[in-house]
C-alpha cells in the first residue's frame, strides 16, 4: 500500500513508525517542509520516498500526491488542514485521513470552538470574551480579573498568558501586565488575516491537564488511551509554555490520576463536540480529534482547547503500545469504514516521552536554531526506547541541525513508571550538540514525585467538583453585584 504522509515533525515521525509495521506493507512517501532525517529513513526503509514542499500549500501537496499516486494520504499537522490541503486532495479523488478546512475550524478558531460549546450547552465549557479590535479589548481588560489571555487563532501553542489574579494586593501589577500584553498580542495577531477575532479573554482554571485523542470517520469514534503532556519548559512545572516537553501514558486507557467516570465524561464531551461541529459546518469530520482537557474544580473534565489532529508529543506515547494494525484503522477512517474497528493496546505497559530542546526554545527561535546535533540511536534502542526526529534538519554538509523547536522525542516503554523512568533518564544522555549549545529536557517527567503530585492535585479538585455537582453548581461562577443582582461572570476582577 502506498501512503503519502504530509508533515515534517515528531508527530509525523510517530505516525510513520505506527503505520510501517502494518500487514498492508506500506511504502511511505513523505511530503515535508525540510529534510527531517527520521522521516527520510522511514521513507527509504519502506521503499517509499520523500519530497520537500511547502506543506501548507494545497497545490504543491496535490502535485506530490499526483506524482506518488498514494492509496492513502495522512495529514499530520493542523496548518495544512487550515489551508485546505485535505479538501483539494479529496476533490482530486484521493483517500485522505485528515480534516477538512471547515472542520479544522474547531482548532483554528478558539472563538468558534468555545461558541460551539456554549451554543449547544456542552459541559466543560469556560467563560470567555473575544475581541476584534484593540480599543474594546483595552476597555475590558481594565476590569478583568482572574483570566487567561489567548490568541483567538491556534498559533502553535504559543501566546497564551495565564494571569492568576486571586490576590487583590498584587492585582494592579497583574493588570499592568494584562494591558501591555493585550497590546502586544494584538500586534502579533495582525498578520493572521484568516480570522475575525484576534484575541480571547478566558476564565482561568486550575487542575491537572490530560489529552483525550480519538480517530473518527464522522460516524464512529474510536478513542485512544489518555495521555498527559507537560507544557512548562522547565522542570517542576516552571517556566514558559511550550508545545509540550514530554508526556506520559498508562497503564491502560486511563492515567493514574483520572477515574473511569472522568474518562467516560471526557469522551462524552468529545463525541458531542464532534456531532455538533459536523452539524454546524455541514461537513464530515474524517481524521484525528483531541480534547486538551483539564480536570478542574469548576466542572470536573473541562475543555482547554481542541486539536483537529493527533497531539504532539501525545501521539508518540502510542508508538510502542499499539498492538494491532494502526494503518488499517487510519485507512478505514479515511474511507469511512471505521464501524467495527478496534484499537488494541498493550494495557500492561506505561510509556514516557521526553522531548529534548535547544536553549532558546520556546521564546527565542534564532538562539535555538542552526546548532549541529548528534544522537546515538543505537544506545537508545538498547535501553528499550525509540527516537523520534522532530525539529531537526539534515543539510547538504551531512550534519543535522536544530530548527528552533524540540529536536528529538525519546519514547520509552516499560512495565511501570519507575523502571521506564530510569531508562528514559539514561536515554536522553545520548543526544548532544556539536557546538556546545546547551540542550534541555525535563528530568521530572515520569518521576514518582511528579506523578504523586498530580494524584494529589486531582484529588483536591475532585472533592471540589463533586461537591459542586451535588449542589447543581457545575460550571457556574456566581458573582453578586449589590444593587444589581447575581450574575455569572468570572472574568471580572477586584476593581470595578
Amino acid at each position, binding site marked *: 500500500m502506498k501512503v503519502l504522509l504530509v508533515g515534517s515533525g515528531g508527530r509525523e515521525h510517530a505516525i510513520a513508525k505506527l503505520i510501517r509495521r502494518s500487514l498492508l506493507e506500506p511504502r511511505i512517501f513523505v511530503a515535508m517542509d525540510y529534510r527531517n532525517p527520521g522521516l527520510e529513513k522511514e521513507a527509504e526503509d519502506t521503499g517509499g520516498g520523500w519530497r520537500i514542499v511547502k506543506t501548507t500549500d494545497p497545490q504543491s501537496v496535490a502535485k506530490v500526491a499526483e506524482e506518488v499516486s498514494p492509496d492513502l494520504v495522512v495529514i499530520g499537522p493542523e496548518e495544512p488542514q487550515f489551508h485546505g490541503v485535505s479538501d483539494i486532495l479529496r476533490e482530486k479523488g484521493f483517500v485522505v485521513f485528515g480534516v477538512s478546512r471547515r472542520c479544522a475550524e474547531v482548532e483554528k478558531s478558539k472563538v468558534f470552538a468555545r461558541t460551539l460549546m456554549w451554543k449547544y450547552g456542552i459541559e466543560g465549557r469556560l467563560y470567555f470574551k473575544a475581541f476584534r479590535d484593540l480599543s474594546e479589548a483595552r476597555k475590558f481588560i481594565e476590569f478583568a480579573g482572574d483570566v487567561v489571555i489567548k490568541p483567538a487563532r491556534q498559533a502553535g501553542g504559543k501566546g497564551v498568558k495565564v494571569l492568576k489574579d486571586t490576590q487583590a494586593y498584587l492585582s494592579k501589577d497583574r493588570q499592568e501586565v494584562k494591558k501591555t500584553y493585550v497590546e502586544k498580542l494584538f500586534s502579533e495577531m495582525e498578520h493572521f488575516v484568516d480570522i475575525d477575532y484576534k484575541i480571547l479573554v478566558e476564565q482561568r482554571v486550575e487542575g491537572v491537564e490530560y489529552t483525550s485523542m480519538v480517530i473518527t470517520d464522522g460516524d464512529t469514534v474510536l478513542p485512544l488511551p489518555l495521555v498527559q503532556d507537560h507544557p512548562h519548559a522547565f522542570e517542576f512545572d516552571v517556566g514558559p509554555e511550550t508545545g509540550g516537553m514530554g508526556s506520559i501514558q498508562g497503564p491502560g486507557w486511563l492515567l493514574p490520576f483520572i477515574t473511569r467516570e472522568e474518562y467516560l465524561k471526557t469522551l462524552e464531551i468529545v463525541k458531542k463536540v464532534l456531532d455538533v461541529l459536523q452539524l454546524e459546518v455541514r461537513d464530515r469530520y474524517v481524521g484525528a480529534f483531541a480534547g486538551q482537557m483539564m480536570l478542574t474544580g469548576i466542572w470536573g473534565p473541562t475543555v482547554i482547547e481542541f486539536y483537529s489532529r493527533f497531539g504532539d508529543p501525545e501521539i508518540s506515547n502510542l508508538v510502542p503500545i499499539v498492538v494491532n494494525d494502526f494503518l488499517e484503522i487510519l485507512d478505514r477512517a479515511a474511507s469511512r469504514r471505521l464501524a467495527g474497528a478496534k484499537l488494541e493496546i498493550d494495557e500492561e505497559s506505561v510509556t514516557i516521552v521526553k522531548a529534548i530542546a535547544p*536553549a532558546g526554545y520556546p521564546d527565542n527561535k534564532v538562539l535555538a536554531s542552526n546548532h549541529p546535533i548528534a544522537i546515538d540511536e543505537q544506545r537508545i534502542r538498547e535501553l528499550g526506547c525509540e527516537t523520534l526526529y522532530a525539529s531537526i534538519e539534515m543539510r547538504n554538509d551531512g550534519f543535522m541541525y536544530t530548527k528552533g523547536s524540540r529536536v528529538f522525542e525519546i519514547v520509552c516503554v516499560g512495565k511501570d513508571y519507575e523502571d521506564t523512568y530510569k531508562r528514559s533518564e539514561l536515554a536522553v544522555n545520548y543526544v548532544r550538540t556539536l557546538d556546545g549549545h546547551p540542550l534541555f529536557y525535563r528530568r521530572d517527567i515520569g518521576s514518582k514525585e511528579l506523578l504523586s503530585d498530580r494524584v494529589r492535585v486531582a484529588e483536591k479538585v475532585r472533592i471540589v467538583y463533586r461537591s459542586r455537582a451535588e449542589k447543581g453548581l457545575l460550571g457556574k461562577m456566581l458573582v453578586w453585584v449589590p444593587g444589581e443582582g447575581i450574575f455569572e461572570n468570572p472574568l471580572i476582577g477586584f476593581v470595578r
Partner: protein
Amino acid sequence: MSSLLTVYAFDELWSLVNIVRYGFQALQHRGSQLYVLCTVKDGVTCYEDDDVDISRHALDHVAIAATYADKNGIKTSVVSRDGVEVAVVTDRAWRKLPDFASELIREVKRCRNVEEAFKSTLQRFVDEKDSIPSIQILTNNREVIAWRTPHGLTPLVLGSYCFDMAIVSSESTAVDILGGDVKKFMGAGEGVYISRYLVKTFATSISKEPSLCMFEPLYIARHDAVVDGVSVYIFRKLLGEKLAEHLDTEVDVVVGVPETAIPYAIGFSHKIGKPFELAFVATGGRRRSMLLSDPFEKIIAVHLKMNPVKSVLEGKKVALIDDSMVTGATMKTVAQILRFRIGVKELHIFIASPQLISTCPFGIVNLDMKTLLAANLSSDLARDYLEADSLHWLSREDVDTVCRKFSLKLCGRCFGVNFLGG
C-alpha cells in the same frame, strides 16, 4: 536569622516593585532589620536599607533579595571584571564571602558557564570547621543561582507563578503570598540555575549529612509554612502533644506565649482535654522579641505583646507553653504578669524544646553562653527564678520521636547533641 528571595520573571513585561515588597513582607518574621536587593540596571546593583520600601529599586524583571535580623558581618558582595558583574548574597554573615566572590568571577570569566563556575568555586571553599551559608548570585547577564547550604540548616524552596515566574525563597510563605505554587523543596547542597532560556536544578558534591536547624520548625518559620515537606503547624502541634505527657498535676487552662507558641498550646490542650485560652493580646502589630538583640528593646516588645485577658486566668491553675527558652527574660516577664497582675493559682511552665545549653556553631541563632538560662541555672533554680510551680522541657528523645514521624532530621548542636530525629 534571615531569608533569601529570588524572583525571576521570564517575561520582561513585569515590574517587580510590589512583588518583591510583598515577598519581603511574607519573610519579615525571619528578620526585618536589614533588607538587601540586587537587580540589573546597566550592570548589577545592590541596595541595602532598613526599610521594606527598598523594593522600589526592583524595576527590572529579575531580582535577588534578602532580609536579615541583624546588620552584622558581610552578607553581600558585588564584584566586576572585564564586563562581567556578579552579586553574591548569603543568608548569614560569611567572612570568606569577598574571596568567594572574586574567585567566582574569575571562574565565570574562565569557563563562561555560570553554573560550572559556581560549582568549581564552591569546591575551593569547603572547610570542615566552617559551613558555607545558602547563596544567591545574580550576573549582569541576568543569570541567577540560588543554592542551599550543604548542611541544609536553613531551608530553600523553588516555586513558580503560572508560565511567568520562577520564585526561590527561604520559606514557602513567600511563594504563597506571591500567588505561586511551591514546586520543590531544595535538598541540602542543591541549587537551581535560572536564566531567560534555561532553568535547571543541580546537586553539588559537597553536601554534608543534612540536618535542618531545629529553630526553623520550632520558632523561625511561620505556622503556615511548609519546611522540607513538613507542615510547621502540625509539627508544632505534635510537639505540644508530646509536651503534655510531662504534665504530672491538674491544670484548669492551657495558654501559649504569643504567638509562636499557640500551636504548641493547642496540641497540649487537645492531649489533656483542658481548654486552650487566648490569654494575651498584642499592641502595635507583631514583633518577634527573640529577634531583637538590644535587651531593652526586647523587653519593650515583650511588654507590648502581653496584655493579659484577666478573666480567663484569674484564680486558675495554668499550664503556660512556650516554644523555647533562651535567656528566660520573656518567660520571666510573662510569669510576673500572670502572678502579680492576674493572680493565677498555680503556674506550670512547659517548654517545647530540650534545654538550650550551647551556642550555635553556625551562627544561625545568636546565642551567648553566659546568658543561656539552661546552661547556667539548675532546673530548680530556674523554676524558682521564674516563680513557677513546676518547669518542664521536652526531652531530646521526645523530639526524636516527633521528628521520625515526619522523617525529619534536625541539627541539635545548641541542645547538646549532633542530630535530633532522622
